[in-house]
């Protein structure tokens, strides 16, 4: 079975990256070290492994999965190869909302962050729909307006960061799309959402398969099309927004992972979302390892490395896209 073999291959790849993620960095450990550190490591080693690398690895995996799943869902509703939460401006709006929260209400409990991100994400989606209601059928318009909105939101984020240079330390680190400094306290921000939204997405898979025949055909097969589209989009925006609330705006994972998954698995949603989630996890984990292994002890935001692969791919998609 194809799904089985591809997933096993990707799981092995993921496991390899996990071991790299746990061993590489400013303090280099070997795999056998990990076990002994676990048993009786020095305080530093134990701290590095348990309080830094492990949560960071888990969060990179979850955020990668979440962004990839969000991209799959957006693409199947909008029927648009250029669509993904970052290109539609959803992630940058979520980032704006979070930066706003961090600057104007620095004492806010960390648990408010996902909700701020959600409000930002949903507002952006609402604004986008408002601006494109007459043109929803034209994918290129949606992508262009989304990109423009995204640029606008990012510009406001930059403005806020320059206006409040003293308050920004936290915000700055957070919004560039970094997995740095993520610890166990960030896990509850994303895990509960994924535990609801991933099974939800799997539950919708067959309906999304039917929807891929087109709205009219799907409706004539007894599907509540509008209902399905709205629920799917809401879930996709929620997935993207909670990812932003943990890692900031990481672009292109939501675009690239579903594409590769569809290339590998064909048209059905269930295998596509499973593989896309694995790929998303792998991409983000790899980017994070790169980001900290390239010039230790300096660390770069993982988002930069994802963009270095993702942006050329997006340009490639646009040049190949024939329906302007």
């Amino acid at each position, binding site marked *: 079975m194809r799904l089985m073999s591809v997933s096993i291959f990707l799981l092995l790849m993921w496991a390899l990256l996990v071991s790299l993620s746990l061993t590489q960095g400013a303090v280099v450990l070997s795999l056998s070290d990990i076990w002994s550190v676990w048993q009786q490591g020095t305080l530093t080693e134990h701290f590095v492994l348990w309080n830094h690398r492990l949560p960071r690895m888990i969060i990179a995996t979850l955020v990668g999965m979440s962004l990839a799943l969000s991209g799959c869902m957006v693409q199947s509703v909008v029927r648009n190869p250029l669509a993904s939460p970052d290109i539609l401006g959803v992630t940058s709006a979520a980032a704006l909302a979070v930066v706003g929260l961090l600057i104007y209400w620095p004492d806010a409990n960390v648990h408010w962050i996902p909700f701020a991100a959600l409000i930002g994400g949903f507002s952006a989606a609402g604004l986008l729909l408002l601006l494109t209601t007459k043109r929803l059928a034209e994918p290129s318009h949606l992508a262009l307006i989304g990109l423009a909105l995204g640029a606008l939101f990012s510009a406001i984020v930059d403005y806020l960061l320059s206006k409040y240079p003293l308050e920004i330390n936290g915000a700055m680190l957070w919004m560039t799309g970094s997995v740095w400094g993520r610890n166990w306290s960030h896990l509850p921000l994303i895990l509960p959402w994924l535990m609801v939204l991933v099974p939800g997405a799997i539950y*919708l898979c*067959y309906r999304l398969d*039917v929807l891929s025949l087109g709205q009219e055909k799907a409706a*004539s097969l*007894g599907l509540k099309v509008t209902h399905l589209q709205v629920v799917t989009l809401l879930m996709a925006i929620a997935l993207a927004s909670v990812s932003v609330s943990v890692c900031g705006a990481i672009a292109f994972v939501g675009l690239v992972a579903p594409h590769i998954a569809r290339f590998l698995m064909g*048209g*059905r949603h269930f295998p596509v979302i499973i593989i896309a989630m694995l790929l998303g996890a792998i991409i983000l984990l790899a980017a994070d390892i790169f980001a900290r292994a390239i010039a230790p002890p300096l660390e770069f935001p993982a988002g930069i490395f994802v963009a270095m692969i993702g942006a050329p791919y997006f340009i490639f998609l646009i040049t190949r896209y024939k329906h302007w």
Partner: protein
Amino acid sequence: MHVNVTDLSVSYRTTLILDKLNLSLPEGKLIALVGPNGCGKSTLLKSIARLLAPRDGQIFLEGQSIHSMSAKDVARKLALLTQTPITPDGISVRDLVAYGRAPYLNAFGHLSAEDKKLIQRSMMLMGVEDLAENSLIQLSGGQRQRVWIAMALAQQTNTLLLDEPTTYLDMAHQVELMNHLQLLNKNGKSIIVVLHDLNQACRYADMLVVLKQGRVVATGTPEQVMSEALLQDVFELNAKIFSDPIAGTPMCIATH
């Protein structure tokens, strides 16, 4: 009556497409909807399939108002083949035909042995069982159209609606497709089909419904309906009507 349309008005944005349309269609017939471009025939077909919400009026299917039925209930009574269905990538013929079972399946789309048998039979009826494992993109236009109809058959409905199924086919495939429809109709399926080609409609349909500007202007057998005056009135076409030398049905030929 099988399908009953009473005072149906449908508008697209501000334009009224169907204007207080009344129509009764009997069961078990092959019925062709004809009319000039923009007369509302596709809109009527989609309304009967419950894809469009009417501004006013009612549509009854087998005695029940379709807007009091659930989407699934409607999908178990009638199947629709739209004009340009989207062909999803990476899907085999068998997978596509299997979607015809969607109105009967649970959320996960699990196919029972019975479902699989029905899918196989639908493919055999349309002569596409040898293509079952092929990808749809590899097929010709005529084969594709037959696969879409096989999918509609897997829906196990009494009624089949088709929106201009022959438009993009060459003549040989048009004839083949219409023969298939005729055979399905003889085996008990009620068929309502939008056709562009009047002579094709006359040759195959038991009943013609002629539309003009959102209203029905004539219904009846092709012999009853077709006249030079009607062609002039509805299509603004100067034509003469002859008897088709093969089928004996009316056949029109434009004079200028």
